[in-house]
């Protein structure tokens, strides 16, 4: 692999609270090239905080530190808020876990996407609208012209998610951090959206961080996968080998998945081992 697009070394995120310090991310290191890197792990393991820390979008109460946090030739660790504003959306996009919170409730979804385009590329409003409609079509929205004029509360869960994806892709970023981007999509639309991302990686050299609970999807879609537990990366594998993972935590996550070809009376749930915290 050539120069990584993103280098993360020793990233930590912690929260100070009256009950003590919560360590959300504990000194993790990884790189992302022109590839699809999956991050999986149970709820609260630090996946979203990792993604947010890269873009400096952690809550104000969070303390973030890293030995290295570099995007291409830019030292993100040293970048101030003004510099970050130029990077966010334009060069690094992030699809947030909850699209309903990320969209402006009082503006039509079409205007919001068109605006995202115009902020990053100088274009007439007619051109921005054309691009927006094309993008909505690309993410398999039926009848883009109708949806262009809808408000966020008028779209279904899966439509909202695709609107967010369209909004993040339209400025053509170099790195995309996608936090549960397809959890609300039906399986065939999901594959169409993934194909768009896949093509951007192979044709345009996009780097993709794909955060997901869906282990089967990550195993089949990503190139590599990082498995997080309690703020650490406990295992890192080529994605095709995910189903042969060795760590008992990863095995536990895989076992708890309901299966389409086998009915079990009860689904096993994780029994956590304190040793996982130090391993």
């Amino acid at each position, binding site marked *: 692999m050539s120069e990584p697009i993103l280098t993360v070394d020793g990233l930590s995120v912690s929260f100070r609270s009256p009950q003590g310090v919560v360590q959300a991310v504990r000194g993790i290191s990884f790189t992302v090239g022109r590839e699809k890197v999956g991050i999986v792990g*149970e709820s609260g393991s630090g996946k979203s905080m990792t993604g947010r820390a890269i873009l400096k979008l952690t809550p104000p109460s969070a303390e973030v530190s890293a030995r290295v946090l570099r995007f291409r030739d830019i030292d993100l660790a040293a970048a101030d808020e003004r510099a970050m504003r130029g990077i966010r959306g334009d060069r690094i996009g992030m699809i947030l876990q909850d699209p309903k919170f990320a969209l402006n409730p009082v503006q039509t979804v079409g205007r919001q996407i068109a605006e995202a385009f115009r902020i990053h590329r100088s274009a007439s409003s007619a051109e921005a609208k054309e691009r927006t409609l094309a993008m909505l079509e690309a993410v398999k929205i039926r009848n883009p012209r109708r949806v262009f004029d809808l408000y966020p509360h008028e779209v279904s*869960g*899966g439509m909202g998610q695709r609107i967010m994806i369209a909004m993040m892709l339209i400025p053509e970023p170099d790195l995309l951090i996608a936090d549960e981007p397809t959890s609300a999509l039906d399986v065939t639309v999901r594959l169409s959206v993934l194909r768009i991302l896949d093509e951007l990686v192979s044709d345009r050299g996009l780097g993709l961080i794909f955060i997901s609970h869906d282990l089967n999807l990550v195993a089949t879609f990503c190139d590599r996968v990082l498995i997080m537990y309690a703020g650490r990366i406990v295992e890192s594998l080529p994605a095709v080998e995910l189903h042969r993972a060795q760590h008992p935590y990863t095995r536990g996550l895989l076992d708890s998945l309901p299966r*389409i070809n086998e009915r079990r009376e009860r689904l*096993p749930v994780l029994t956590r081992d304190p040793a996982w915290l130090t391993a």
Partner: protein
Amino acid sequence: MSAPVISVRDLRVSFGRGASLIHAVDGVSFEVAEGEVFGLVGESGCGKSTILRAISGLNTEWTGSATIAGRPVAHRRDPAMARIVQMVFQDPYGSLHPKHTVETALMEPIRIHGLDNGARRIDRVLTEVGLSPAFRYRYPHQLSGGQRQRVAIARALILEPRVLLLDEPTSALDVSVQAEILNLLSDIKRMENLTYVLVSHDFGVIAHMCDRVAVMNHGVMLEELTIEDLMRGRMRHDYTRELYEASAGYSRRLETRADEADAAA
């Protein structure tokens, strides 16, 4: 089969007007027997949530007829229906009021319906969903996603309904918490003899929970099949097969096939 607990005939719901008119649900009929789990799958935006909102009485703008536990669903607000049918939503964040404690959230329906023994009911329902009674004093931000979904289920159960409508109840949860919630839903169904309608995009979840599943596309139901048939890949419609195959995960090959089918349609 005994008389169905849910019976829906020619349900239609539309939104907008003129060029933006859409028939979100375009003549849907189905029946669900007592104690059965009926799955609903289909394309995003095909009208699954809209069906649940109509038969639970959240949305009153629809035509057709629906009966739940022998009681016709009214085309206007009908508070009594809340004691027969309740809904659980996908989003455990949005479905609880951020400034209300668990106790306040659970007390509200008790108060509205003028039930006695509020405190006892709350203890019972919290225990039933696997939370200790001490959770009653917590606010939503003090709960994990899985705990929030347990509270949402507790709130749905507090009026002792016969039917739960579950709209992607675990898609926002991690796989281990999903397993906990699915086990919980199986347990309370058995204990309370409930009937479920379950919307999910995950065929694994559908196969694990349901007895039958209906496949929807574009506001209509294409087919209904037993889980036996689903598991063996015995479906009639190409769209159902596409969904079934796509649920195996990503592959460029499958993807191309789905696209060709799309273009041909």
